[in-house]
């Protein structure tokens, strides 16, 4: 895997509603830790504004665009609860930041994904076109 990437990284936070089980004090502690953490990254120019996502929404699927309003956005441990965009150049640095997330201690997991400069589909379509040209050449 190439670890350099000029386009930055996206952190996707996945978890169920773990915070429902915490006491008021514990919760306030996590919130303060999290806020201080994000403020520091932002001040260092490493994070762009991120946001939590509401625990509701819809899923659209299929040729006819069927809409399902009750997604598993609250219960599932795989549900995405928020995101952060990082302006760092290597996967290693993005991972190190992900590892410093305060909410990891409470069972969230963090997906670290490089942002693509160009749509990967487009790149692949060009590759295929080139391969076909070679075959016909």
């Amino acid at each position, binding site marked *: *895997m190439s670890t350099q*990437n000029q*386009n930055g*990284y*996206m952190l*996707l936070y996945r978890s169920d509603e773990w*915070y429902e089980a915490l006491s*008021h004090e514990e*919760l*306030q502690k*996590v*919130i303060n830790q*999290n806020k201080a953490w994000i403020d520091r990254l932002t001040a260092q120019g490493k994070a762009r504004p991120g*946001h*939590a*996502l*509401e*625990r*509701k*929404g*819809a*899923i*659209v*699927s299929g*040729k006819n*665009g069927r*809409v399902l309003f009750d*997604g598993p*956005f609250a219960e599932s441990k*795989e549900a*995405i609860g*928020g*995101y952060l965009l990082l302006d760092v150049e290597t*996967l290693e640095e993005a*991972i190190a930041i*992900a*590892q410093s*997330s305060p909410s*990891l*201690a409470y*069972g*969230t*997991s*963090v*997906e*670290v*994904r*490089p*942002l*693509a400069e*160009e*749509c*990967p*589909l*487009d790149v*692949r*379509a060009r590759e*295929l*076109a080139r391969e*076909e040209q070679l075959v016909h050449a």
Partner: protein
Amino acid sequence: MSTQNQNQNGYMLLFRGTDLRKGLSPEELQKVTDNWMNWFKRLTEEGKAVAGNPLEREGKIVAGKDRVVSDGPFAESKEAVGGYFLLDVATMDEAVAIARECPGLPYGIRVEVRPVAGECPIAADIRAEAQFAQV
């Protein structure tokens, strides 16, 4: 739908599905890509899309108290996120209507439509509880 579906902070579309690059002919792939880029361009011109990016089909997952790093199933999984748009629209209805235009839908892509929270919903919960306790 009622006004409770209003949201000043916009909506996020998350595109989920297996890697479209497998199983499509070069022509089909080019068509989907072109349609997708034109769709994003139009939404941007209309002021409805404010950001968007494809994600590389690679990356890592960090989890647990020990902060263990592992490889993710980003290429094979039907649940994998392949990209996102941030929409500056005010209602869930409008966000869903845009999601239904996604050129990837006929090819098995699913679009998750999520309201973006203005502040951390956990912090909002706490404040609401504190207010309730004072009453």
